[in-house]
């Protein structure tokens, strides 16, 4: 079984169990917050959506739904746990292409943590932060809550923080991350794929995969439909899906590379996103070769281009800017611009292989 799939199952088991346990957490008696404006409480506990229990992220109400994405953003190798809660009685509307239509009062959580040695899943996870994304009065809002060392309280950190984290990665390599807890505006910097700030992950093509719920594995779109928080979704077989980039059995190199590039680059590199001025668009739906970077000269990359003539030079990854920037941890060179201080070697290998196999040439 591919490693990525195993991880999804493992994380699902934790969250699903947590959702059922109500005895051990001191905050379990609270009622989840349904936000109505952009203000935010100073502690995560006041949201009453997730807490840490036995070293795992624990949902505090049975209507809080854990979920996963086929290909997540790489965040220095952090372990991630995601939940969503819609206000009771409300439903998200299905969208084939964009973010699902979540109602006001929807609250997402995404928690980030590390094991000292990622190869040993028996080790405890040091949780760094839990980010909240909520919709109120038609607008999405963002705040990161930083966990204290004991994991007993997380407090709002509007200004962000660079956190040094040393760990051994899944390949056994020692990493020294300058992990970024984003400032509120750094959240928005990435969450603007289509212009106004909005979620990135919860689209049909990322959600269309199984999750190991307490009730057993089930496709997430089907599950959300069955429990009544999603309307209008087709049978999962007829919904779009981007493959698990890290799973060689999930698709061709091109399909998986394009999935990876959308997940890790497309939120900025889109026609309305924050890198819109570059003209380089990396969403999986892009077909124009220049927009995809093929034989496109870097424009305003400065030292970030590394002397390479084209963003993507077919057959010549060493002459292509994209793998160069993916392979760097220099702040002025590294892409994405924020949120990555460790090289995702598997991502680099995949994109490199895609470029290597691309037909044609530039000169």
């Amino acid at each position, binding site marked *: 079984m591919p490693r990525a799939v195993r991880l999804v199952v493992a994380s699902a088991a934790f969250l699903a169990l947590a959702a059922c346990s109500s005895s051990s957490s001191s905050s379990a008696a609270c009622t989840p917050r349904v936000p109505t*404006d*952009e*203000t*935010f409480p*100073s502690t995560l506990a006041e949201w009453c959506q997730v807490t840490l229990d036995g070293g795992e992220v624990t949902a505090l109400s049975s209507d809080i739904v854990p979920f996963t994405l086929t290909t997540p953003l790489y965040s220095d190798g952090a372990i991630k746990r995601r939940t969503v809660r819609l206000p009771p009685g409300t439903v998200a509307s299905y969208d084939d292409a964009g973010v699902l239509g979540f109602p006001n009062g929807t609250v997402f959580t995404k928690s980030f943590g590390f094991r000292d040695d990622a190869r040993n899943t028996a080790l405890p996870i040091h949780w760094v932060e839990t980010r909240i994304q909520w919709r109120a009065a038609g607008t999405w809002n963002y705040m990161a809550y930083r966990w204290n060392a004991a994991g007993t309280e997380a*407090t*709002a*950190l*509007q*200004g*962000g*923080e*660079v956190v040094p984290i040393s760990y051994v990665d899944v390949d056994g390599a020692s990493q020294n991350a*300058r992990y*970024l807890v984003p*400032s*509120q*505006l*750094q959240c*928005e*910097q990435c969450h*603007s794929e289509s*212009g*106004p*700030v909005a979620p990135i992950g919860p689209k049909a093509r990322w959600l269309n995969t199984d999750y190991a719920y307490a009730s057993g594995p089930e496709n997430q779109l089907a599950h959300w439909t069955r429990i009544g928080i999603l309307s209008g979704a087709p049978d999962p077989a007829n919904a779009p899906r981007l493959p698990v980039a890290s799973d060689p059995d999930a698709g061709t190199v091109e399909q998986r590379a394009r999935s990876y590039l959308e997940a890790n680059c497309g939120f900025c590199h889109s*026609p*309305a996103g*924050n890198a*819109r*001025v*570059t*003209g380089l668009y990396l969403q999986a739906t892009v077909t124009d070769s*220049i927009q995809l970077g093929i*034989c*496109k*000269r*870097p*424009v*305003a*990359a*400065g*030292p*970030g*281009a*590394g*002397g*390479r*003539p084209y963003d993507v030079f077919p057959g010549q990854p060493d002459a292509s*800017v994209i793998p160069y920037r993916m392979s760097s941890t*220099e*702040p*002025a*060179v*590294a892409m994405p*611009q*924020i949120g990555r*201080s460790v090289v995702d070697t598997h991502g680099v290998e995949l994109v490199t292989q895609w470029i290597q196999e691309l037909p044609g040439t*530039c*000169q």
Partner: protein
Amino acid sequence: MRHPLRRLACGLVLAWFAAACSSENNSNNNVVNVDPSMSETAIASAFSGAAANSTIQMAAGTYKFNNSLNLSTKDNITVKGAGMTSTILDFSGQSAGADGLVQTIGAGQTVKVIFHDFSIRDTAGDGLKITGGTGVHVFNVGVSWPTRQQHGGYGIYPVSCKNVLIEMSSADGASDTGIYVGQSDTIVVRNNVVTNNVSGIEIENSFNADVTANDSHGNTVGFLVFDLPSLPQVGGHHVRVYANQFHDNNHYNFGDPSGTVALVPGGTGGAVMANTEVEIFNNTFTNNQAIGFAAISCFAAFGGDPQTSPCFHATSGYNPFPKNVNVHDNTFTGNGTNPLGPASSNPDPTHPSLALAELLASGFPPGAGDPGWHNGHVSNVAFDGIIGIGSGSTPICATNNGTETFNFANLHLDQFTPQTPNLNAILEFDQAQFACSLPALSPVPVPTF
């Protein structure tokens, strides 16, 4: 005077509750005080949570940042220091985020912003970057790289903005451009000093710009007005460059080899590429060793191979030729004395800027009796000679730029072949053909704030 502890307490309160506080205070003159004793995260909170119509007042002192500093995208925020040499934002220890002070405004929003009286130093990437502003005023702002070895790309960098006014500011040492305005509309850049950058000032893929009364020296090239293919906004037009000083721009080109500015030979006073309606007048071009001014097409920069040149694979609406570039009444002194001079000091002997420098030198070999080398220097004004068929406009008019013969050269790159790369054999001094007149461009309305 307020007690310093009180000020600190206020800062801490802001760190946690800025959003709650700010949403209740929508009046003008809502001042948020920031001082160097505050933690980076508290300062970032103040910038992040700033409400509409507020002023972030940065007390004098040096502020150390490890992370990019992102500014709220609420309307009408002012970031104000105590003076360009008093309030210093020091990013020499930056380990996260590429740029220094950043404001990224979503497409379609209406957001005005004002920055003044501070300096930004040693950012990993760009210094001050504003994306998507609809009113951007930058004055008395300095960006430089005094200690960082690898300098960031741009100093002051508004992109995809409307109504931009940059004045009384400085940029020193950018590895691309000191003051760069890209894909924007209605721009005034005046009274700035730009030094030791690859490009001093650049107006790129932009509409309606006035560049005036600037002092640009010590750069690789004094100014650029470029229109590049394959960008969301193409069709740069209506740019006036007047009453500036472009002198001693003889730095070897240290731009990243794959960047567009890396093509420009060191020692260039200024250049226009592929723009429409550019009026260059009343400037002084002094002691720029390669050439005073050149107007070129996209092909001169990126080549003319139909299979590979980006000039052929451009965004719809892109025109690769210079059109109606009107160069008149400028004063040229001591330019073009050594087109390979700056290149000879480049520590990278294969830097792309060498190609055009060598090409230029091949047209103007020094030596008595050589027809290309007149009055001891390269022609003050040059045109690449590549003309679009049926363009309906003149590429360039050059008049009153000095009285000497051979003031103007048509490099005739249309006749250039790799087999005969000697420009001397093909260039022409057909000044009369381009001694045309064009109507003056209208002044760009100065944005008001």
